[in-house]
């Protein structure tokens, strides 16, 4: 049984300077109330690991607008001109990672791999400064694990012990980041009694989840 905490209580757990993995793809599937609570709490110097920074006024875009973020590790920032402007002004550090490599690096952090070998990024700026490894005569980039202090997971439904379900394209990075952080906070749309979610429908087992955000209304 998890405790259900308010977005503000959850934001209070996350200190300035923390590394946070945040789910969502162009704000679809992001933990919206939690993000707004971080903004309201005036959080600073966060390192955000996420697919993208959405756009101004949406999802992670709120954190960028509030200048809560010192560093972003993402595959795409192109639809948020504020991220680009802060990057050019040197106010925010941006590490761009191919999307497939990003999700595998987070997964590696979550499942205890020391790294993965990939062809993606070879011959491009992504390869700069990285170790290469040869396997069966083919060269691969060694990509290292990523983990966070916190994973902020958006989901469709949770049960009382934190088993999570996701919907359609709102899965995206959420089930992966839920494995790769010291503390996992999930924001479900609805919370249902234990047993309502069939074992086969669970995408993130409750044992991975530390806190649930309480119901919205």
């Amino acid at each position, binding site marked *: 049984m998890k405790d259900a905490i308010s977005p503000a209580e959850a934001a209070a757990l996350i200190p300035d300077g923390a590394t946070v993995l945040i789910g969502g*793809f162009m704000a679809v599937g992001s933990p919206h109330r939690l993000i707004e609570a971080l903004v309201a709490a005036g959080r600073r110097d966060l390192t955000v690991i996420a697919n993208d920074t959405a756009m101004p006024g949406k999802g992670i875009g709120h954190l960028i607008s509030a200048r809560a973020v010192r560093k972003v590790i993402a595959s795409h920032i192109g639809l948020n001109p504020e991220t*680009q402007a802060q990057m050019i002004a040197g106010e925010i550090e*941006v590490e761009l990672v191919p*999307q497939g490599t990003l999700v595998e690096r987070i997964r590696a952090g979550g499942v205890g791999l020391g790294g993965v070998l990939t062809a993606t990024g070879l011959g491009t700026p992504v390869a700069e400064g990285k170790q290469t490894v040869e396997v069966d005569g083919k060269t691969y980039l060694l990509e290292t694990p990523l983990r966070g202090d916190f994973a902020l997971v958006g989901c469709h439904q949770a049960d009382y012990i934190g088993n999570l379900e*996701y919907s359609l394209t*709102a*899965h995206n990075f959420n089930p*992966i980041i839920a494995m790769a952080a010291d503390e996992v906070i999930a924001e479900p749309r609805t919370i249902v009694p234990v047993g309502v979610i069939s074992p086969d429908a669970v995408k993130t087992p409750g044992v991975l989840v530390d806190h649930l955000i309480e119901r919205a209304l």
Partner: protein
Amino acid sequence: MDVKERIARRVALEVEPDSLVNLGIGLPSMVANYLPKDVHVFFQAENGVIGLGARPPEGMEDPDLTDAGGGFVTAVPGAASIDSAMSFGLIRGGHLDMTVLGGLQVDQKGHLANWMVPGKMVPGMGGAMDLVAGAKKVVVAMVHAAKGTPKIVPECTLPLTALRRVDLIVTELAVIMPTEEGLVLRETAEGVSVDEVRAATSAELLVPAAPGLMRLA
């Protein structure tokens, strides 16, 4: 006929029945409109759906169901929702039959540059590097030249997207196939001479005795 429509119509002819296809944002996404009625295809959106459908009925949009550009979509019967690890597992594992992407430059070796212009445009590579490295067939759909500046060049001056040779370049003027020997001019558009294609191309073209006519259906 509009330049972009011409390109999209020609690319549509490359789509194999029952294949899994990923269309990039912009021009490539138009390809879906010109598929022959009897060709059944599954479209993948890298944010996590196999079986991407058309726009949803007004008032029935689901915030959890969008394409990789964040626009509302539907899902066809038999669709599957997948997380980002599975989505890029399909792309990088060779399960994606074809991807259609835009291009900034393609060079004599068939290398594509399509994700950044240093100092100008640094949106992030999103899934582009994974798609080019991993898809079974990579088709570049782009206008032949950018305001008079050739985009098919001896060697890319922009950072590469991948070291993999793309399989086909389709422009409003021509269809060009990168091979080990170089860029082979396969088809010219109606009313376009070989010399006109050459004039718009700074890379050397290998021209067979009689290049075909660029089909549109």
